[in-house]
């Protein structure tokens, strides 16, 4: 009796497994057949509709669109037309026409209705579509979705609003930033990426909303965004206001927004303040101050940068070395001072950067120049580099350089004992 039960049990499981395997096999085959047909049809329809739609857009006659392009949302024609229109919308020439057609054919209305669906994925997909269609009429609905507690909905909505652009969406996002960040509904990286999508049009608004930036997290996100958008005097002014902020992240982002080559003129009065930040107690503020000064090609900072080569934080030391090297001949005195000093780490950093950026080539060229002082300083630096073991560029030049006079001088350097 017991054996019979066991056998029936095993047979039952085996049969179930066979049926399940068979079911999955059939499902795989059916799905493949269905998809093959669907996508073949979709490709074909895209081609057909592309021709029709282009014809309408180029003739400027959109009156027949409702008749010729009408389709049901569940039909294959619906996504085919949508794909064609979205692609055409990205071309400047057809932007307006494609937007009108999308609206005429009821795409935004359909996706707006879908926002009431129960499934999070369906709603998120609809939000995304509205964003891609740049549907301005859906902005109020999208703004209301920012107050939801579902992170997936909130982050897709922010992205959609950023694609649509405009002040209403931007203001709605900025106003809600403290809550969204506080509840962890969206990450700062995702936010910054979306804010950047508002483009240069967002600058005036972002630069003038300083009252909304009481929360340091918000201020740093906005400043970080402005730092990536095209340089603008309004952004520079806002950044200047935050240079002395009590929050280090905000100070660092303000420096980032200010440190743009284009701001060279705008922040000429702020250089002293930036140079002062080279002594900031927080290392990443010092790091950012170096970068900003480099971008502003700030010569008066050379001495201060020289001191940072001995900073306690390696990132700061490396950045200072890189910046001094990039400042070129103007920083030779400071470089010499560092190389003649006793800090091996600092010396290594300078030599490494000189090699990576091929500054050594420039130094070797200086050996053949007319300026005797420059020649002597360059020779001295190369000698020290050789002594520290950074000899590869010298050896390469000595073997295969093209200027005989320089080659002889390089030979003279490499003949010196390494480590001397």
């Amino acid at each position: 009796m017991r054996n019979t039960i066991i056998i029936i049990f095993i047979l039952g499981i085996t049969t179930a497994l066979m049926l399940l395997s068979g079911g999955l096999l059939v499902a795989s085959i059916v799905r493949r057949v269905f998809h093959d047909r669907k996508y073949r049809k979709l490709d074909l329809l895209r081609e057909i509709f592309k021709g029709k739609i282009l014809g309408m857009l180029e003739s400027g006659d959109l009156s027949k669109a409702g008749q010729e392009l009408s389709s049901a949302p569940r039909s294959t024609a619906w996504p085919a037309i949508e794909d064609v229109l979205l692609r055409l919308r990205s071309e400047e020439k057809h932007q307006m026409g494609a937007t009108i057609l999308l609206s005429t054919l009821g795409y935004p209305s359909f996706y707006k209705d879908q926002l009431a669906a129960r499934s999070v994925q369906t709603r998120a997909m609809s939000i995304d579509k509205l964003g891609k269609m740049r549907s301005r009429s859906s902005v109020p609905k999208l703004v209301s979705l920012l107050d939801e507690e579902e992170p997936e909905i909130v982050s897709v909505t922010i992205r959609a609003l950023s694609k649509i652009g405009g002040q209403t969406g931007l203001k709605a996002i900025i106003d809600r930033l403290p809550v969204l960040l506080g509840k962890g509904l969206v990450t700062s990286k995702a936010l910054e990426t979306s804010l950047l999508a508002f483009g240069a049009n967002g600058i005036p608004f972002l630069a003038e909303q300083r009252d909304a930036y009481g929360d340091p997290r918000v201020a740093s996100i906005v400043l970080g965004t402005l730092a990536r958008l095209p340089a603008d005097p309004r952004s520079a002014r806002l950044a200047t206001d935050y240079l002395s902020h009590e929050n280090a992240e905000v100070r660092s982002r303000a420096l980032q927004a200010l440190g743009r080559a284009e701001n060279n003129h705008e922040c000429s009065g702020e250089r002293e303040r930036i140079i002062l930040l080279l002594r900031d107690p927080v290392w990443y503020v010092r790091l950012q101050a170096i970068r900003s000064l480099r971008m502003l090609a700030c010569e008066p900072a050379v001495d201060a940068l020289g001191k940072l080569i001995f900073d306690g934080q390696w990132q700061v030391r490396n950045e200072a070395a890189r910046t001094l090297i990039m400042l070129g001949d103007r920083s030779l005195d400071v470089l010499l001072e560092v190389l003649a000093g006793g800090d091996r780490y600092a010396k290594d950093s300078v030599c490494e950067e000189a090699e990576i950026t091929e500054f050594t080539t420039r130094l070797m060229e200086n050996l053949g120049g007319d300026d005797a002082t420059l020649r002597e300083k360059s020779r001295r630096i190369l000698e020290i580099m050789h002594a520290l073991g950074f000899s590869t560029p010298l050896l390469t030049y000595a073997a295969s350089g093209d200027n005989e006079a320089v080659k002889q001088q390089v030979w003279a350097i490499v003949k010196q004992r390494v480590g001397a």
Partner: protein
Amino acid sequence: MMRLLSVTVLWFNVFVGVYFGIVNTIYSLLLALALLVIFRHIRRIKYSAFTEFQASPETPPVAILIPVYNEEDVVLMSIRSALAADYPFFEVVVINDGSSDGTLKRVIDEFRLRKIDRVYRKFLPSQPVKRFYYNIETPNLIVVDKERGGKADALNCGINVSRSPYFCSVDADSLLEKNALIRVMTPLLESSVPVVASGGVVRVLNGLRVRDWTTIQEIDLPKNPLLLFQIVEYIRGFLFGRVGWDVLNSLLILSGTFSLFHKATVVETGGFRTGNVSEDMDMIVRLHKHLLKAGKPYRIRFVSDPICWTEVPGTLAMLARQRRRWHLGLIQSIWQNREMVLNPRFGRIGMVVIPYYILFEIMGPVIEVLGYFFVVLSYAAGILDMDFLQLFFILAIFYGVFLSTAAIFLEELTFRRYPKWRHLFKLLLYGVFENFGYRQLNSFWRLQALLRYLTGSHEWEHVENKGKDDRVKAQTK
């Protein structure tokens, strides 16, 4: 005496039955979870933010670390595909781990690299570095030539050299799909809880046609049955095993072939451990241990859409070596972190996940091999009748077939990387065939690894020229 023996054998059979019942229930649960998650994931991909991140200057830089040891035939493919990654800012660090063939020369010649003097700062211990190579025309590529120290040592060296806050380890015989890096990074950018590691899917490269060393031109299936078995196995392992564990936030394994890590956290844990033959698993276990001890919130993620193609062994001897090494690595990783076992301080990892690995992954081959032996013995001794014996094997085989079919179904649902009808049927067929010998061989190799570990043999078994026979397509096309 005979009666006692029969009772023992009978009860052992019952134990084997119950054991496999539990294992299969767990697998079925993981499969059900994976199905649910993958269905959702497919819909989510349509509105994923990865294209925005791909173009965003806010996306953090990543260092792609490629440790290389005697890989002159394929090294250019992995470097070229890494350099072709569609990612805003990244550096590629190739670490030549004392190759004795022409690997280094090949890389130097191909990228016209020159020696450069760079400072090597040891945040993590590693064997001495001999030289650095660089070319300002490819500024995001640096090649480090170092003394041989093994993969873990090479990765530590790469971490020391890299300057990015994240690094992605990629094997030298692997090809990254262009958007794999941004896709594996996306969970880190979207999660409000810090993600310290994230892994993608690894697929079998053998048999594929590769263009310009960077792009897959045509996907085809190899002729070698051993490779076909592995294709089915990789699909199953990555699409439902890891997806299932990821949902439970309990991943213990990410493939070292393609995984992304937060550098500072890895440095905090002391880097990759050179004494372990499976440095990838050991790192994940230690990340869990370190972060749980520190009480820091974190996540380790697996993402099912970034793909890295890698060569797999084409001969039984090499496959045996690889499988023994994997199992030995699993045992070592758990033994070296044994303080986590059933320790409530380590939450579900210590109380559930590691015990699962001990009971069902480490001990699995022992029970399986003994199970086959005892069931046959029971039949010979007249304890089990023929019907029962046949049913036992039919059940075991059909369950295997079911899992393989389900995995191929998942593949159909997700990527359909094997597009032709003959691919589908061939994979399904090999999903059936693998239950007749291949699976048992795997269990045998894993048992061998356990026995070797118990007898004190812990050496790294190097797998040479993994896909030698199938490389021609990758090189010439």
